[in-house]
């Protein structure tokens, strides 16, 4: 640590644009803070061969004691840290349970609408990272979670939702998922005429829409359309690689000069993939989704993107439901209404309170 006196000297020097001190003066000031060169050499690998190679050691006992002290401190800090983490986890688990009781949707759209009513802003496009678990019925659980999320977001007035699941298993069962979500929406909204129109698609897949019967009844009373996009890890870096391949191909054929490749071009191409599904209905608006999500909810113990498409995340706010306690075990992995709500409150810059 730099002592107060030296810090003042350096600050004064900086204010004068580095003119106050001469080179030699500055060096002498620094010298006392620099590590010993011999010490530096062995630092990258404290327990490996470099230590042994240095045979004529001056203070073997002191070095030994030092390393033992370090090891002891390491153990002690981790024990203390572990205890603190456990306590925090327990605390948050209790808080979460209380929130889960206080804030429960009861499958009532009105109640959900009431919960988001006071928020200053809502994300236009919500994105969520879900993980496929290892149990046998993992896929069914995942689909149910997606259906719940879809219902909550549609009730709270967010009609653009994208779901990221790493393996991409969801893309192979779009019709089944559509069916499950429709059932779930029915259990929230009741009669089909009140339900929002559901559009479900994945990049390079056609849109799967609700049956057209609901449209014919009355289009004016239900203008809402819920659009859900399914993403997987192949839509991330792989898509950028594919784009590069196509561009290289075009360039080799003289159709494009490399100077034309700008962030704007890449942005246009990448956005198109997630916003425009195959075989677009010409009567539909051009883009279904805002390409960049406003809020990314990570249902996991800590914030990691796990291969989420990188390009779209430029200005996305991120919120991790289990991120408050350095959770290590599966804390916060379940998709719960209170976690979803906390994310929305966080996005709006509001504090969640007990009592709604």
């Amino acid at each position, binding site marked *: *640590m*730099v*002592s*107060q*006196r030296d810090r003042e000297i350096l600050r004064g020097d*900086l204010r004068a*644009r*580095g003119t106050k001190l001469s*080179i030699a003066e*500055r*060096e002498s000031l*620094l010298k006392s803070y620099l*590590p010993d*060169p011999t010490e*530096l050499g062995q*630092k990258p690998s404290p327990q490996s061969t470099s230590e042994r190679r240095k045979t004529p050691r001056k203070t073997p006992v002191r070095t030994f004691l*030092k390393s033992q*002290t*370090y090891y002891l401190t*390491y153990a002690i*800090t*981790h024990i203390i*840290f572990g205890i603190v*983490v456990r306590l925090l986890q327990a605390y948050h688990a209790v808080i979460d349970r209380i929130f889960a009781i206080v804030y429960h949707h009861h499958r009532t759209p009105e109640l959900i609408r009431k919960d988001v009513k006071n928020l200053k802003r809502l994300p236009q496009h919500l994105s969520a990272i879900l*993980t496929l678990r290892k149990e046998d019925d993992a896929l069914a659980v995942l689909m149910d979670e997606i259906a719940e999320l879809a219902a909550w977001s549609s009730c709270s007035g967010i009609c653009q939702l994208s779901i990221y699941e790493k393996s991409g298993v969801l893309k192979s069962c779009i019709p089944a998922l559509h069916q499950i979500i429709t059932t779930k929406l029915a259990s929230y909204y009741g009669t089909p005429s009140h339900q929002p129109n559901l559009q479900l698609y994945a990049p390079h897949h056609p849109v799967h829409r609700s049956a057209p019967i609901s449209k014919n009844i009355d289009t004016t009373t239900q203008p809402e359309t819920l659009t859900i996009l399914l993403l997987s890890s192949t839509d991330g*870096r*792989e898509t*950028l*690689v594919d784009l*590069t*391949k196509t*561009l*290289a*191909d075009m*360039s*080799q*054929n003289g159709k494009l000069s*490399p100077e034309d*490749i*700008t*962030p704007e071009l*890449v942005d246009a191409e990448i956005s198109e993939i997630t916003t425009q599904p195959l075989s677009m209905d010409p009567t539909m608006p051009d883009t279904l989704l805002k390409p960049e999500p406003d809020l990314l909810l990570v249902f996991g*113990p*800590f*914030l*990691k*993107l*796990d*291969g989420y498409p*990188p*390009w779209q*995340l*430029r*200005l*996305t*706010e*991120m*919120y991790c439901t289990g991120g408050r306690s*350095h959770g*290590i075990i599966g804390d916060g992995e379940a998709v719960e209404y209170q976690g979803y709500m906390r994310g929305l409150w966080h996005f709006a810059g509001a504090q969640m309170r007990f009592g709604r």
Partner: protein
Amino acid sequence: MPGSLHMSRLRNWFLASPPAEYAITSLKELLIGALQQGPIPQHVAFVMDGNRRFARSHGIETVEGHNLGFEALARILEVCYKSGVKVVTIYAFSIENFKRSKFEVDALMEMAKVKLSQMAQHGDLLDRYGAKVRVLGRLDMLKPDVLEAVNKAVDMTSRNGDRVLNICFPYTSRDEIASAIRETVEDYSTPIQHGHSTAAASRNPFSESHIAHNIRAQTHGSTTHESHSDSESTSGSSGQDDDASVQHDHLDRVYGSMSSCSSSTTLHLGNQQDPKGGSIATGADSPVYISPETITRQTLNDHMLTKGTPPLDILIRTSGVERLSDFMLWQTHENTEIVFLNVMWPEFDLWHFLPVMLGWQRRISKSRQDPNAEGNFAGEAKPSDEGLDAMLWRQGGKVKDI
């Protein structure tokens, strides 16, 4: 700062007293030494956010806030390098930041210039202790005098040890990705051969792709896998009966199928249609290119500004803003832990960094004990790129062969 002015002054006086200072320094040393006993992240990135807000809340000038931010950076760099972090990447200046007030931009540039030229003045000291400094970003957007200081500092430190400090100077990640794509495309649209080789290739397309692969391996030579297969092909070019020929043959088939596939669908590439159609007059010396199908994630990785650095382990953003703001989008990919801290950057110190490190160490040691656990990722023992590359190759081959 809570508490009365008098109290805070008293506290500052106490903290500045020699015994207290000594105690704090020893405690920090002890903690850093302790951190070293566990796994250590190889690559840490910081978004130094909150300098302006700190200045505003403390009633000092913005420029002064940036100066304090630089001190915080020096502090945290000391902690990182002492505890064994190999690469530190910092977000110093975004391309978007040029839109700020001219006064502030100029002051920031001036500070960068002063600091970088000071660094260059202490050349011999840096040689002994320093890390390599690399400046990532659109250097062409800098003023000439700043650029000169940048180049000088980068040159001075280029021979230093294995620690690296990446300064993202006028940088945005989208710009980086687009540049990487552009450079890759440029690489791939440079013809590798002219003239008579096309005639030879038209006789035997199998061997043409073979040559293309070899030359790519020679020119790029970045991954060990490629150089490995290169040596195989030169040694065992005559016989199909050595053990390497299986994989080799496989690659060739991939190439063969790829070229035929691409020429049959979209391409009007002369040299690839010649062996099939034969009659298309596209000129005898049309250039030969490397097949774009050989572009992988690794190819793009090698064209990023952060090439050659280990994958990002931890990304820390201060000031409580919870987005990436166009920083390290490509690098913050699979296993990077993103941490948003509710502290202004000038206040950032070991005390805020320590819990992050401890949490990371805890998770890593847990996942090593139980490799099947959720959220498992290898800290230092990264899955090697050659393995990934080879795997991609095999997968691509399967798909194409079907």
